[in-house]
């Protein structure tokens, strides 16, 4: 059939049902073989399936979340009473540093990346991500970085200079030993991993969408992931510079941050916060992407203000890069300059406000079914809005000078991060758990989970606002009884245990549901986006026939005779690459299959940076190793591991429909 013929209105043709089913069955079997994942120990190091990698990311990140929570619990026990001796100052300093580092670098960013890696291909109707091997590399680099940090922590070498490690405290003169070096190198690992994830998401979202999914129809989840990925690409280099300069000051006597030799201590702050502020938006914006689908599904109506929401995401991404000095208002930066950042920090409340209002408008116009995911989203509203308002307070230079570096900031940051990211994340877990595992989580346990977390969270962090105004600075391992901070601290510590109880309920719920939850089926929530158009859990190849999208809410707007994509090979790993704006099919693309090389490159990266803590020669040797491994990776056959097709000799010679399906003229 020529292109012109295909464009003409399709004629009615008779298709033999039996033959159709036989063909579909055969194709499915071929797809299963072609897309089979390697198993066992070897499989763990070579499997590039995006769903498998995303699940590993999620489990690993959740384990780090638990570790971070344990550290938080230890801190709360220490601060429960004045003059407590539960932890020594050295232990406390390591614990609060590792808590912040874990939560920011090892939990929040990776888990958001993971959600993107799992769902972006499914939501845009692709067979896999754009760069599956880069994806695998990113995961291993992340895992090694996390193990590095915790091994150091357990061996009394945990960093103790705070999660943002200001110089000169973290510099060579005031942080002896290798503690801060481990921190600086771990940063490198997690940032490389984030960059890998960002590249993968952008490639997939822009070039691998199903036909018909124009940018105007892109789900908000995918928009959020795309904005986040761009932010990652622009922000990460700054922190790699900051940590790289710090590592080189500590290892090879450079003077980047040594004022006596021409350096500047504030340079570090600028470099770090130029990354650090976008970082919190990198954590927050994917969560906004979770909220939109959940609201759409449970309000049973289209989103109010799709375009406004998309533009808000994008403008948040942009403005987020212009705020960083609000972390530095107490430094001798001139007042006029600081005021510009006040203005920008307040301005970013506008797109956030637009989103909140649009969502509330959606809820107003819908017929709500308040299941656990929506409950968590409602919790998000309550908590995040409060956090955002305290953020506007902190944006003001003079006001910030009273509450900067106090427990008020601790309260604010937890309100926006936990309220703005963790609550939507838990909502997302409840929403998408059926898709991951094929089983539903318990609704009842979900409600317990939510209320324990909501009440516990507010008990912990609301008193901290008052503590900050009462003069309690951050990062203090103890305080005098005369300050009067004891009562509020005690309340906060009790709340911490309630919050922990909520998380425990979640873990129990997950373990129970894995084996005894109700079977979910393809689309238990009767939702609209494409991930629900395949089985739960999806097959390795995601979709048997890639759908053709007919609207912003593909499943809801699909007509009875909705077309599908036919003609992609079932005997090699192939997917459709489409144009950026209108998703017009452009070419068929060989997706690289499983390979050992990403793991080996990750290992050589690990050698480079971990040994680089001890000697600068490691950078050279590691770079050579990495170069060799990368060369082997790039020159490998994309379908190297995919022996099945070669062995069976089945290769699809022509592109058109199989002979059995050629239309019989009526």
């Amino acid at each position: 059939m020529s292109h012109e013929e295909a464009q003409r209105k399709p004629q009615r043709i008779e298709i033999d049902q039996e033959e159709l089913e036989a063909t579909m069955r055969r194709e499915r079997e071929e797809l299963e073989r072609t897309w089979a994942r390697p198993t066992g120990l070897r499989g763990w190091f070579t499997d590039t399936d995006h769903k498998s990698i995303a699940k590993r990311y999620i489990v690993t990140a959740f384990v780090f979340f638990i570790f971070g929570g344990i550290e938080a619990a230890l801190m709360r026990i220490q601060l429960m009473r004045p003059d407590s001796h539960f932890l020594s100052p050295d232990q406390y300093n390591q614990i609060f540093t590792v808590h912040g580092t874990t939560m920011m670098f090892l939990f929040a960013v990776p888990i958001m990346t993971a959600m993107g890696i799992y769902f972006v291909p499914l939501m845009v109707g692709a067979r896999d991500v754009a760069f599956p091997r880069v994806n695998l590399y990113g995961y291993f680099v992340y895992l090694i970085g996390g193990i590095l940090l915790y091994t150091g922590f357990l061996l009394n070498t945990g960093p103790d200079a705070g999660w943002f490690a200001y110089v000169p405290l973290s510099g060579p003169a005031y942080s002896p030993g290798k503690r801060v070096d481990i921190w600086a190198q771990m940063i490198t690992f997690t940032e490389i991993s984030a960059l890998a994830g960002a590249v993968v998401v952008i490639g997939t979202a822009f070039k691998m969408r199903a036909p018909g999914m124009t940018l105007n129809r892109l789900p908000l989840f995918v928009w959020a992931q795309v904005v986040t990925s761009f932010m990652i690409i622009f922000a990460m280099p700054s922190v790699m510079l900051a940590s790289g300069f710090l590592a080189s000051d500590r290892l090879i006597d450079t003077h980047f941050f040594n004022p006596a030799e021409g350096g500047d201590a504030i340079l570090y702050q600028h470099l770090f916060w130029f990354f650090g502020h976008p970082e919190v938006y990198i954590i927050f914006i994917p969560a906004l992407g979770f909220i939109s689908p959940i609201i759409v599904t449970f309000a049973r109506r289209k989103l109010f203000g799709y375009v406004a929401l998309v533009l808000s995401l994008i403008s948040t991404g942009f403005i987020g890069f212009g705020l960083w000095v609000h972390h530095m208002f107490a430094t001798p930066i001139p007042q006029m300059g600081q005021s510009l950042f006040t203005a920008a920090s307040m301005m970013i409340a506008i797109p956030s406000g637009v989103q909140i209002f649009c969502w509330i408008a959606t809820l107003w116009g819908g017929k709500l079914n308040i299941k656990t995911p929506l409950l968590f989203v409602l919790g998000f509203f309550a908590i995040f809005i409060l956090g955002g308002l305290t953020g506007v307070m902190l944006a003001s230079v003079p006001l910030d000078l009273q509450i900067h570096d106090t427990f008020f900031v601790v309260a604010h940051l937890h309100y926006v991060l936990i309220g703005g990211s963790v609550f939507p994340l838990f909502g997302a877990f409840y929403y998408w758990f059926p898709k991951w595992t094929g089983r539903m989580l318990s609704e009842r346990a979900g409600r317990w989970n939510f209320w324990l977390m909501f009440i516990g969270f507010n008990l912990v962090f609301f008193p901290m606002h008052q503590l900050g105004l009462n003069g309690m600075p951050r990062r203090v391992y103890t305080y005098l009884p005369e300050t009067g901070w004891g009562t509020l601290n005690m309340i906060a510590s009790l709340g911490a245990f309630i919050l922990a109880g909520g998380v425990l309920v979640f873990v129990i719920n997950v373990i129970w549901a894995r084996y005894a939850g109700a079977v979910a089926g393809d689309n238990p929530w009767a939702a609209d986006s494409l991930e629900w158009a395949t089985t739960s859990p999806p097959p390795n190849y995601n979709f048997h026939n890639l759908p053709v999208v007919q609207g912003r809410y593909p499943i809801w707007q699909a007509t009875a005779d909705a077309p599908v994509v036919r003609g992609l090979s079932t005997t090699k790993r192939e997917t459709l690459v489409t144009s950026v704006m209108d998703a017009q099919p452009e070419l068929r693309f060989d997706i690289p299959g499983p390979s050992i090389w990403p793991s080996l490159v990750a290992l050589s990266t690990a050698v480079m940076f971990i040994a680089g803590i001890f000697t600068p020669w490691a950078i050279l040797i590691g770079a050579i190793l990495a170069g060799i491994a990368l060369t082997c990776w790039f020159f490998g056959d994309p379908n190297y591991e995919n022996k099945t097709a070669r062995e069976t000799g089945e290769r699809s010679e022509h592109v058109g429909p199989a002979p059995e399906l050629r239309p019989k003229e009526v």
Partner: protein
Amino acid sequence: MIETRNTTLKICAALSFVLCCTSCGGIHNALNPTGPQAQNLSRLWWLFFIVCSVVFVLVMIALLLSLRNRTGEPQVATAPVIEPPAEQERKRRNVVISAVTITVIILFVFLIASYSAGRSMTAELEHKNGLNIELTGHQWWWEVRYDDVDASNIFTTANEIHIPVGVPVTFSLKAADVIHSFWVPNLAGKKDLIPGKINTIWLQADKPGVYRGQCAEYCGLQHARMALWIVAEPQEQFNAWRQNQTQTSVTPASDSQKRGQQVFLTSTCVMCHAINGTPAGSNIGPNLTHVASRNMIAAATVVNTREHLAQWIIDSQQYKPGNKMPQNNLSDADLQSLVEYLQSLK
């Protein structure tokens, strides 16, 4: 005896500190302003707080009202609405646009209020010819140097700053090692002390009293115990205090005090601490010339009594582990006379 009375006074000072703290507006409270800077900030705070609370309540009401149209069906099965009625959508659009407009206006109000508050806080900096104090942050104590055009009026003390009521005081903030932050909530916002830079802040106390501050930038092991006191007193009292501080150290009177001075000069103390008028001139640690005139020791975290001082000298690591003062091995007799001598240094 003078010793007992001073001890009692110090304990009373500490107790009143406690009592003040446990009340709603403590002496370490940003919302209990006692100076123009802090008052400015407190007003700004209340503006923000009230407006933000109203906004929060309104949004929460809108959210809760949106929940009225709900169903309790166990399965999510209601038919989804792709094209809601245009009239309702238009109404909602108008509401959303109004809400966004109000947000923008509120933010502008905040911006202007914030900017003008900021200007009035820094505008005075160039015109001050009141008191100038140079504050240097160390790990983990505050070195306080009172500047004057007349060199004989310059003196150095530690951790306790006296200022006259109603007079603007300009602080030059320097750091000797890492970044610290000077913060006395009742009087002003905070400013960082950054090595290699000089930061400036002015503040003024309008009421006599004791105002506690604490270092507000994580600076290492004992960041938690790096506090300071600002004692605001009437001008005459301040002048008397200042006059006393410029004097050299009190000559030891009794035998015990003389012996104590000998102990000081022949043991580890002399390596780090200075006492003007004696051969001890090291500036590594706090200047002890008038240590007995201070209410607290250990960077305003321990009441300055004989017992506490003795414990601090013998084993400061037990109270403030990691601080730079080593433990000392002194006989009881030596320790007693040393403490007597130090307590005589008013």
